[in-house]
């Protein structure tokens, strides 16, 4: 068997492997699907043993329980898809390096040490900052596997999607305490100030309604805009990467997207105050205020996203024009 077999070994097709073949194809070509699957299974088993079922449960609860961190559930599939895309047009001699095994061993041993001795944490009042978060372990382990079986080039090409795994918990507790909470204050005060501006009296009776499910302006956690801002940040990160924007421009793009999403949320809060003002005197509308919030939020976020995603397309066409001229 040569290093570059026809694809027939996979699909029954007798066409030879061309220069457009993917890493997956070349992996298969040199070793066949069974070995590729075996690598995947062994690596997945190692990952499962490393993070353990209880830690997986904690991560699952973070994803499904926290509106802010729920976007993290998209990180693993997004990373996998982007890795596949990154390797699609690449071709290299899949050699791999034993340094990958060293990295995997180090990561697994570190994980074992943490299981036995505890995880190093910096405590500031009641806020925990994990020095070795789960995302770091997953990132190092996957890096090791790719280096071991794919080599430096495969790793370099897929570095960004692999790095995304660092964000599997996009809103750790220190972030919630030091970024989310102050922004909640700003969001709540903006809504209150706007309510005062449009003449909505937030007397104590109205305040009490705020905390009942029937009616009220309930500026809940997540209304501070960080949920949208975090999602926008991750999306711009991925879009900037897909459009191959230079790093400095990507940085501006991501920061701009986050700030825009946050500002748009303040607009949404003020819009919601207006809706509540109308609903206070119109009972049938009051019953649908939660839906109104979702509709208003979705429309504002969607329009912001359309604007933000049009920018790299514009940048790319400008660059093409400039190159042609």
């Amino acid at each position, binding site marked *: 068997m040569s290093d570059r077999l026809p694809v027939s070994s996979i699909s029954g097709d007798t066409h030879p492997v061309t220069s457009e073949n993917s890493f997956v194809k070349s992996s298969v070509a040199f070793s066949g699907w069974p070995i590729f699957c*075996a*690598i995947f299974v062994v690596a997945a088993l190692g990952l499962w043993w490393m993070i353990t*079922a209880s830690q997986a449960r904690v991560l699952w609860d973070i994803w499904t329980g926290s509106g802010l961190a729920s976007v993290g559930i998209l990180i693993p599939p997004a990373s996998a898809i982007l890795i596949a895309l990154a390797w699609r047009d690449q071709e290299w001699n899949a050699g791999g390096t034993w340094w990958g*095994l060293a990295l995997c061993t180090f990561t697994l041993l570190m*994980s074992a040490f943490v299981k036995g001795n505890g995880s190093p944490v910096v405590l500031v009042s009641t806020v925990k900052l994990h020095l070795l978060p789960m995302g770091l372990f997953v990132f190092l382990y996957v890096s090791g596997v790719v280096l071991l079986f794919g080599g430096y080039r495969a790793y370099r090409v897929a570095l960004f999607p692999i790095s995304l795994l660092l964000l599997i918990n996009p809103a750790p507790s220190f972030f919630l305490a030091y970024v989310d909470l102050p922004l909640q204050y700003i969001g709540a005060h903006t809504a209150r100030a706007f309510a005062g501006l449009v003449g909505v009296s937030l007397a*104590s009776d109205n305040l*009490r309604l705020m905390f009942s499910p029937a009616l009220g302006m309930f500026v809940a956690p997540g209304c501070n805009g960080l949920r949208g801002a975090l999602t926008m940040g991750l999306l711009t990160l991925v879009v900037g990467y897909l459009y191959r924007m230079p790093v400095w421009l990507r940085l501006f793009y991501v920061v701009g997207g986050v700030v825009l999403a946050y500002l748009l949320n303040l607009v949404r809060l003020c819009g919601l105050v207006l809706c509540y003002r109308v609903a206070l005197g119109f009972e049938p509308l009051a019953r649908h205020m939660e839906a109104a919030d979702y509709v208003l939020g979705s429309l504002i976020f969607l329009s912001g996203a359309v604007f933000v995603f049009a920018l790299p397309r514009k940048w790319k066409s400008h660059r093409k024009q400039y190159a042609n001229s």
Partner: protein
Amino acid sequence: MEKSQKTIRKLLVFAAVIVLCGGVPHFLFGRGSFHAGYGYRSPYALETVFPSAIGDFHLVNRWQTALQEQVVEQVAIYQDVASNETAQFAIYLNAGAHNAAACYLARGMQMQSRRVEQLQTADSSAGFEIVSIVDQSVAGTNGASLLMATTECSGEKCTSRPLDFKAGPQLTWLKSNYVERNVASNELPVPLSITFESPGNSGNGQGQDQAEQHFRKLLSNFNLKPLRDLSAGK
């Protein structure tokens, strides 16, 4: 062929490393469980936790909301006979620690004062953190005294969990996560928050004192035992 064999050799070494460095610690230090490890508590019936009357206060409304997959919020609103004073009781199940005062403050309300106090309830003495909140009525009239009292019940007692600590940063080793610690001791904290609203002039010391007096009286008739039982999983 040679490359294929090389990959197989590499895979075998990798598998051996996985078993030794991943599998052995996994079985040595405990595997945990995806399903059973969370210590889920089914909520008691609302009438068990929130009776139809607490002292002079009668029940206005009580409800239960499933906030997410496992967290359940149970709330009840009580009013005095004259409907002047209102108290809202809320517990959060399966949420771990939850200081409701922090949520109120996060929503833009300003704290006037804060202290930790041991208060007498119907069945026991319990530690409460009491936060006095400034009435932020834009109109500036009919300002009310707003008190938030929070406590956290375990199987044995209910104690306050202060909003924050003033200690500086410290490095520590976290043996296991919060949930696992509580599952190990077979207890899940049940946080209770009480919002007490009394009419009067905001910032008026006399009105504030009267509100606190009425709040204490209300609390002296409230039973914390169901919350402790809930925490202990009885």
